[in-house]
C-alpha cells in the first residue's frame, strides 16, 4: 500500500466509527432521554399517559401511605397542584414528608404516576436541583437561611 492509501484507510475507518457513534447518539437522544416535570408542568404540558418522565416536587405532608411488600403511595406537590405516586421498593434514606424528591416513571390512565425509582437528596443540605429551581420560581422555598457565622 502506498502512503496515501494508508492514510485514506485510516481516515475511512475513523469516519466509519464516528458515523456509527453519531448515529447511536442521535437515536438514543430520541429514545432514552427523560424530561423533568413538576406537577404544574404536567398540567400545563398535558403529558400523555405512558410517557416516561421525572416528576419532582415536595412530598405532601400527611400523604405517605405504606402498604405491604414495601408498597408506598404518596403525593408530590408544588405550588400549583399535586400528583399521586405509587411506588414499590426501597425509598431513599432521606425520603420524608415535606422533602424534595424526584420520581421517575410514567402516568397511568387514572392519572396516578407509577414510579420505578425515587430519588431524594444525599444529605440534609441538598435539594434536588430541578426541584429547588421549580420551587424557587414558585416562591415556595427560600433556601437554607443558615445563621451566618461571624468570620474574619
Amino acid at each position, binding site marked *: 500500500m502506498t502512503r496515501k492509501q494508508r492514510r485514506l484507510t485510516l481516515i475511512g475507518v475513523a469516519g466509519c466509527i464516528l458515523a456509527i457513534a453519531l448515529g447511536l447518539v442521535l437515536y438514543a437522544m430520541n429514545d432514552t432521554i427523560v424530561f423533568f416535570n413538576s406537577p404544574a408542568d404536567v398540567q400545563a404540558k398535558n403529558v400523555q399517559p405512558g410517557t416516561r418522565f421525572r416528576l419532582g416536587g415536595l412530598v405532601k405532608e400527611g400523604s405517605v401511605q405504606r402498604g405491604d411488600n414495601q408498597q408506598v403511595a404518596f403525593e408530590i406537590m408544588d405550588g400549583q397542584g399535586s400528583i399521586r405516586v405509587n411506588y414499590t421498593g426501597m425509598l431513599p434514606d432521606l425520603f420524608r414528608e415535606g422533602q424534595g424528591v424526584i420520581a421517575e416513571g410514567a402516568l397511568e390512565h387514572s392519572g396516578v404516576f407509577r414510579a420505578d425509582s425515587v430519588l431524594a437528596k444525599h444529605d440534609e443540605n441538598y435539594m434536588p436541583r430541578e426541584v429547588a429551581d421549580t420551587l424557587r420560581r414558585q*416562591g415556595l422555598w427560600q433556601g437554607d437561611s443558615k445563621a451566618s*457565622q461571624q468570620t474574619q
Partner: protein
Amino acid sequence: MVIWIILLAMTAAAVMAVLWPLSRHYAVSGQADPNTQFYREQIDEIERDRERGVLLPNEAEAAKAEAGRRLLRATGMEDVAVAVGEPALRRRRAASTLALSVLPILAIAIYGAYGSPHLLGQPPVMAARGPATPSDLATAISQIESHLAQNPQDGRGWEVIAPVYVRMGRMGDAVKAYEAALRHLGPDANRLANYGEAMVLAKDGLVSSEAQGIFEQAVKLDGTSPKARFYLARAAEQDGQIDKAKAGYAALLAGSPADAPWTAVVEEQLARLEGPQTVSRQDAEPQMGADDILRMVSGLASRLEAQGGSADEWARLMRSYAVLGQRDKAADAAQRARQALAQDDAGLKTIDMMARELKLTDAQP
C-alpha cells in the same frame, strides 16, 4: 512575636530556595545529554540481548540500525549552551531581584488580605481546648446530646439544652428541643412562649401563624406571660394591624412592673409605631405613609405565599391591593387564594364575596 519571627524565617528560606541555584556555578561536565543517552542505552541493550540469545542477529541488526538513526537525529540537538558573559549576569541579577522583591511582597500582601494576623497576638486559646477537658462546654453539650439520644423521653434534658442551642445560633435544633420538651413535660406558658420564640428566631424574626398559635396558647394558660404577649403584638404589627399591635404593647407595658427587663424594648417598639406617621384614628388609613402600606402589604403577601393563611387574611390582602389601585395584583391574589383554599368552602365564599365587593369580575375562574 514568635510567630513573626517564624514567618520571617519561612520567607527567608523561600527566598534562599530561589537565590541558591542562581548563585551556583553551573556544572555541565559529567552530565550526559539525556536525548542521546537514551538511544545509546538502547543500543547497548540490544547488544546484550543478542549476546544472550533473546534476539536473533538479524533482528538485532535491524533494531540497532533504527536506534542508530534516531541517535544520529538526536545528536547535535545539545540542549544547553553554557551562557556566560554580561547578558547572563544581568539575567541572573534580574531573577535575584525578582525573588527578593516579589516573594516577600506577594506573600505578605496575600496573607494580609486573607489571613488573620491580628489573632496572632492573642494567646493560643485552643491549646486549652480539646476533647479531653471534661469541663469544656463542647464536651458537656455532646454529652447531653448523646444522653438525649439514648433517652429521648427526658424532657428536662431537652429543656436544658434548648436555650444553649438558641445561644449557639442553632435555631432549628432549639425548636426541635423545645418541641421534645413540650411533648414530654406537657404545655406550660413559659415553655410555650420559649418554643414560640425559637420558632420566630428560626424564621429570622417572622412570627408565623404557627408561632402565633403557640403564643395564643401560652396566653390562654397564663394571661400575663410577657414574652407571648410581646410576640403576639409583633405578629399583629407584621399583619398590618398597627392599632392592635399598639394596644398589645401598651397593655403589656401597663401590666408589668416598671423595672421589668423588657420595659425598654417594649417602649422602643411602641415609640417606633407611634413615630412621625402617627395618625389620629382608625379610619385614617389613606393618610398613612404610602411606604408603610406597601411594606405591610408585601409582608402579608409573602407570608401568605410562604405559609398560607386564613380566608380572612387573603381577603385582607385583596382589599389592600385594591385600595392601592393595583387591581391586577388583587385579582392575582384572589386566584391564588382560591387555589390555596380549594378545600375550604366557607373560605371560598369569603373570597368570592370580597371579589364581588371589589368588582374583581375578571378574576372569576
